[in-house]
C-alpha cells in the first residue's frame, strides 16, 4: 500500500465502504506514514465540520403559511393564467392607474374627478373595456390579482362569477390588464381589484355606474 493508494481510497475509507482486508492495509500504512496520517486526520476533521454545518430553523408557522400560500396561489394559477403585457400602444379606453409601493392612486382623465374613488359609466348590456394600469418599480413575479365584482357587473366570458383571480407577473414599468365588463342589471356598484405579492397587498376600488 502506497501513499497514492491512500489518496485513491480515502473517500471509501472515510465512508466505511472498504472491505476489512483493505481497511487493515490502509490502517497499517497510515500508522507508519506521517503524511497520510495528516491527510486522514484532516479528512476526519472535515467530516466532523460538515456534519456540524447548521441550518437555521424557520419560524414555527412558516411551513403552515407556505402550504397555505401554495394552495391559494397554486389554485389561482390553475384557474386562469393571464399574463399582463407591457404598456405599449395607445389606450382608448378608460384608464385607472395605480402606483405600487408608493401607494399613490391616480385619477386620470376621463374618470369622475369629483369622487374619492375613480368611476366609470357604462350602458346596460353594452360591453365596455376598462384598462387597469399598474405601475411597478420592479419586476413582480408570482403576483396574484383578484377582481371582485358587484352584483350585475360581469367580466365578459366569466358569466355569473363574482370573483376572478389571476396568477401573473408584472414587469418593471407600466402593465395593463384589459377588463371587458358588461352590466346585466342597472344597479352598478364597486369593483375591487386586489394585487398580492409576497406579504403585501393593495386594493383599489372603481365605482361602476350603469345608465
Amino acid at each position, binding site marked *: 500500500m502506497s501513499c497514492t493508494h491512500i489518496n485513491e481510497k480515502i473517500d471509501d475509507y472515510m465512508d466505511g465502504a472498504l472491505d476489512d482486508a483493505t481497511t487493515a492495509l490502509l490502517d497499517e500504512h497510515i500508522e507508519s506514514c506521517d503524511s497520510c496520517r495528516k491527510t486522514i486526520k484532516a479528512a476526519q476533521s472535515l467530516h466532523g465540520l460538515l456534519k456540524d454545518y447548521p441550518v*437555521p430553523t424557520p419560524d414555527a408557522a412558516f411551513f403552515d403559511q*407556505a402550504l397555505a400560500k401554495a394552495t391559494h396561489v397554486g*389554485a389561482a394559477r390553475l384557474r386562469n393564467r393571464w399574463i399582463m403585457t407591457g404598456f405599449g400602444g395607445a389606450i382608448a379606453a378608460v384608464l385607472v392607474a395605480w402606483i405600487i409601493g408608493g401607494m399613490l392612486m391616480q385619477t386620470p382623465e376621463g374618470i369622475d374627478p369629483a369622487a374619492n374613488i375613480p368611476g366609470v359609466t357604462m350602458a346596460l348590456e353594452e360591453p365596455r373595456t376598462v384598462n387597469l394600469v399598474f405601475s411597478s418599480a420592479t419586476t413582480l413575479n408570482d403576483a396574484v390579482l383578484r377582481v371582485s365584482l358587484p352584483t350585475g357587473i360581469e367580466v365578459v366570458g366569466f358569466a355569473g362569477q363574482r370573483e376572478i383571480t389571476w396568477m401573473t407577473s408584472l414587469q418593471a414599468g407600466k402593465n395593463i390588464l384589459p377588463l371587458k365588463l358588461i352590466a346585466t342589471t342597472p344597479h352598478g356598484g364597486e369593483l375591487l381589484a386586489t394585487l398580492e405579492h409576497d406579504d403585501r397587498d393593495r386594493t383599489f376600488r372603481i365605482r361602476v355606474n350603469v345608465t
Partner: protein
Amino acid sequence: MNISDQNRSATFERLLRPHLDRLYRFAWRLTGSKAEAEDLFQDVLVKLFGQLDELVEIEKPGSWISRVLYNHFIDNRRRFARQRLVSVEEGQLPPGGVDSLPGPDSPERDAERADNIMRLDKALAELSEEHRHIVLLHDVEGYKFTEIQEITGAPVGTLKSRLHRARARLRKLLSDGGTF
C-alpha cells in the same frame, strides 16, 4: 388520476408535509440564506401544487420533489444568488450569520465553532457550484449517491469523482487556512 378541487389542498398537504423539513434544508443549502431559501421553498410549493396529479402517482416522492426544487434553483440561479457564501476578508463578514447560530457548548467552544463554520463557508464558496452541491448533499445532508443522481441527473460515477475532488480541495483550503 384527477383530484377534485375540494380535495386538492388536503391531498397536497398530506403528501408534502412529511418532506417539508428536508426540502427546506435543501433550499437553504443551495441558497445559503434564510430569505432566499424561503423564497425558493415557497416557489417550489406553488409549482408542486400545479403538479399534484403527477405527484400522487409517485410512491416515494422525496427525490422527485427535491429534483423539482433543484431544477427551479438552477433555472433561477441569478434570482437565488447565494448570499452567504461570498468571498470576503475576515472581519468583513456580514453580521447575523453564523454568529446567530448558538451551539450547546461553552462560549469559547461556540466561538471556535462559529469561527470554523465561517471558514467552512468561505472554503465552500471557493468550490465550483457542482462540487459545492455534491458536498452539501452527500456529506452534509446525507443524501445517497442514487438520490443525488435522481435529483441532479448526473451519473453516480461522475458524482463520486466530483466528491473526491471537492473533499480534497476543501481539505487543502482549510489546512492552508489553519483550520486543521
